[in-house]
């Protein structure tokens, strides 16, 4: 090993340590930002070192340095502008797009490595090299196109409904089988370039075919899973290039994305298999039959609701995606401030899958300057609902649906929910009686303790704010 190679080794080691510490510091909001910056610094050092050793100092390295001179500014500009401009409500889409870019890059790197060495009439490339390369290419490609579809579904460009057709699972299975067969052929029979391109093409189609049948409500799980896939693809290219920075970073993300996906599924009480293949959110037959009965809902005026809260002991606010869509976070914070000033104990109950992504509500409320220690996780606050004067549900639906506890025929049966129905009064802010993202009716709305305040969440909360001021 030359001295340069030894230093490179230590640079990669240092970078890998910052990646691990970066994720470790995310365990607390106090240290999280520092952790992210540490990881970013480690990344900058690794990139800077590779730039120096592979381009500036290496003979002939300058001949291709223009690729970086063009590519890095373009990528930085697109990434930074996207990251700065994206509204916090659209965060899941943004993560999906960045993830797709990473997956695409992994597929490209793997392909370039294959194309460099393949096509000649020499002996077959070593099987280990081929396996790692093909894994990087196929997983990266699935991650790329899958992320694009997930982005489309979250953004509303592609239908959020599960898109299924007769035999769709057979097509997906055939794609998978085709990829497997081609992979084996490419490894043990021939390093044919056209076959490799076909292999890549099938992988790209598989990404689309695998995500289309999944409902919009489950996209966060998909994004998390694809994030994990990109990590694995990056780790595979780490094997190909025998590069420990890629190997460690990719594996870390692969593992972390995996466990996050698992946690999300558990929060919904569903298996990953069910999420991926269940076509959740189609108008299934059973629950519609149960819900067509007379829905007796009572309305409440904003003034009456404000009085209930202003003279209550404790108000628990349950935010959902409806709040985010209406951009009502600032008004909600104002309402919180006013109630706190009146001596009311105000807390927020955050369901693990509230919003479009776990922790999404925390980000949105943090943006509106709600202190994070008023935000309670489900297990922490569920026993407190019985002490609450008012549970104020703002644009949340499925996570408050008592059918999950009682109705075995409900598609969300068994999902842990927030016990809003145990509060003295439940006030639900809702645009209309339309069903939630998952397309399921909610018996909470006809509960005798529940009153509804219809309208745009922001306008309703503003009305509550003036009501509390007047009370």
């Amino acid at each position, binding site marked *: 090993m030359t001295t340069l190679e030894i230093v490179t080794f230590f640079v990669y080691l240092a970078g890998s340590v910052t990646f691990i510490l970066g994720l470790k510091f995310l365990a607390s909001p106090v240290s999280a930002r520092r952790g992210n910056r540490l990881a970013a610094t480690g990344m900058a050092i690794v990139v800077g070192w590779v730039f120096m050793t592979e381009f500036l100092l290496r003979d002939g390295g300058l001949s291709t340095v223009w690729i970086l001179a063009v590519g890095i500014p373009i*990528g930085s500009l697109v990434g930074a502008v996207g990251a*700065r401009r994206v509204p916090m409500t659209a*965060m899941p889409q943004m993560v999906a797009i*960045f993830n797709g870019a990473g997956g695409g890059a992994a597929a490209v790197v793997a392909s370039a490595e294959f194309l460099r060495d393949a096509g000649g009439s020499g002996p077959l490339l070593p099987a280990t090299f081929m396996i790692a390369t093909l894994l990087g290419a196929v997983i990266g490609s699935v991650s790329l196109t899958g992320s694009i579809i997930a982005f489309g579904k979250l953004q509303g460009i592609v239908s959020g409904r599960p898109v299924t057709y007769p035999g769709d699972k057979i097509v997906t299975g055939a794609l998978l089988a085709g990829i497997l067969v081609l992979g084996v052929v490419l490894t043990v029979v021939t390093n044919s370039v056209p076959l490799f391109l076909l292999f890549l093409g099938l992988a790209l189609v598989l990404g689309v075919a695998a995500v289309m049948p999944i409902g919009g409500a489950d996209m966060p799980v998909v994004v998390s899973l694809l994030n994990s896939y990109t990590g694995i693809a990056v780790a595979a290219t780490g094997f190909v290039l025998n590069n420990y920075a890629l190997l*460690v970073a*990719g594996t870390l993300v*692969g*593992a972390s994305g995996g466990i996050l996906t698992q946690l999300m599924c558990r929060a919904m009480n569903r298996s990953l298999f069910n999420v991926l293949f269940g076509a959740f959110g189609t108008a299934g037959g059973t629950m519609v039959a149960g819900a067509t009965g007379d829905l007796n809902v009572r309305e409440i005026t904003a003034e009456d609701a404000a009085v209930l809260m202003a003279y209550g002991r404790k108000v628990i606010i349950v935010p959902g995606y409806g709040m985010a869509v209406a951009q009502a976070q600032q008004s909600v914070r104002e309402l919180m401030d006013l109630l706190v000033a009146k001596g009311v104990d105000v807390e927020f109950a955050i369901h693990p899958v509230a919003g479009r992504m776990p922790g999404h509500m925390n980000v949105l409320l943090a943006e509106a300057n709600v202190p994070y220690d008023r935000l309670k*996780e489900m297990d922490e606050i569920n026993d407190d609902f019985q002490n609450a004067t008012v549970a104020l549900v703002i644009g949340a639906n499925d996570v408050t649906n008592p059918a999950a506890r009682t109705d075995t025929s409900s598609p969300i049966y068994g999902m842990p929910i927030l016990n809003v129905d145990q509060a003295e009064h439940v006030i639900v802010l809702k645009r209309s009686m339309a069903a939630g993202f998952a397309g399921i009716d909610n018996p909470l709305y006809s509960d005798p303790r529940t009153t509804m305040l219809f309208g745009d969440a922001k306008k309703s909360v503003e009305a509550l704010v003036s009501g509390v001021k007047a009370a």
Partner: protein
Amino acid sequence: MNEAVHTLPTEALLQALFIFVLTAFVGYEVVSKVPTMLHTPLMSGANAVHGVIVVGAMLVAASAEGPLRIVLALLGVILGTINVVGGFVVTDRMLEMFKRRPDGKS
């Protein structure tokens, strides 16, 4: 270091496998301790970390010959940079907003 990387000697491969397995456990342990409240920044932060693929794209670029490999290298560098820069910036933006109650009471 770039030529003949593909031969991937068995010893190097086994060492890489060793690191791979241990790192998977580290990743699992570290992420298990992250609270739900930070799962969105976690996802985007982890997303930024796999942006390290830009290093792979740079290594491809370093030895790129012929139009096809040059185009692939450029594409890889652009995509990888989007991933790494966008990922870290957006995560920082989110984490900046997390604040405690002013009175510090919890």
